[in-house]
């Protein structure tokens, strides 16, 4: 289906498709509940949380925020280029979005190795239990997002005329969901 023929104003056809929006809502609720529980224990064990938070590298997390946001921009550009039938440029931007995601994973891995070497594992204390669970699940989402983009990117390169705008928009919506979740995780976990 061509983008011009989709009526996004219909309730059942938001950009990316209704199924993807249901997934986005479920994910936001899940991470939201995790963050609410984190905030509760933060008030109960304020000293432990404050001490543990100072062990995190906010600089690396800020860099990761920048990378994810820029990657989200490239993804949005890919969809725009696809809609204007510039398949080559759409593919180019899709790859740039993936590179942003891969760099995010690389930096997160460096952060994780540092924490493990310092003995801050899942069972170290309540703060690090939340840290590992929330950031770990988010990282899994980023990895899944990269696989989705990889599949779409491959098709976009080999047979661009067979790629449907719905598929690309669904992939983009999933990718932006990773941005949304990180934008809530970052200040609460690293800066609160």
């Amino acid at each position, binding site marked *: 289906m061509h983008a011009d023929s989709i009526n*996004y*104003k*219909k*309730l059942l056809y*938001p*950009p*990316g498709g209704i199924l993807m*929006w249901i997934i*986005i*809502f479920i994910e*936001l*609720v899940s991470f*939201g509940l995790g*963050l*609410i529980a984190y*905030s*509760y224990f*933060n*008030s109960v064990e304020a000293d432990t949380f404050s001490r543990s938070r100072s062990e995190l590298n*906010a600089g690396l997390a*800020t860099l990761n*925020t*920048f990378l994810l*946001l*820029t990657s*989200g*921009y490239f*993804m*949005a*550009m890919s*969809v*725009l280029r696809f*809609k*204007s039938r510039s398949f080559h440029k759409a593919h180019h931007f899709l790859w740039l979005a993936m590179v942003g995601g891969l760099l995010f994973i690389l930096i997160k891995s460096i952060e994780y190795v540092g924490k493990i070497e310092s003995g801050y594992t899942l069972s170290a204390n309540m703060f690090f239990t939340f840290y590992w669970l929330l950031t770990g699940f988010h990282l899994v989402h980023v990895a899944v997002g990269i696989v989705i983009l990889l599949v779409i990117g491959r098709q976009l390169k080999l047979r661009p005329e067979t790629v449907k705008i719905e598929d690309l928009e669904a992939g*983009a*919506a999933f990718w*932006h969901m990773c*941005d*949304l979740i990180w*934008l*809530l995780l*970052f*200040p*609460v976990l690293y*800066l*609160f």
Partner: protein
Amino acid sequence: MTKQLIYRNLIALVVLILLSGATALTATLFDGSLRHGILLLLAITKVMIVAGFFMELHLAHRFWIFALFCLIAVISAAIFLMA
């Protein structure tokens, strides 16, 4: 039309990066619940910009816009109250 959309997205990206800088600055400058409030406000604003521009939520039925923003507001309010 496409050029206009590209510029709008670029402006959205610049605003998001500026807000990220403001987030870091807030964490350094402020203390206590004021800091929590500002950090969450900045996070909500960034989420709205990503959803509105990058996810092209402005194209969607107003139900989705309203529902997403309500959900983010409820989650943020709960985080703030718990903290």
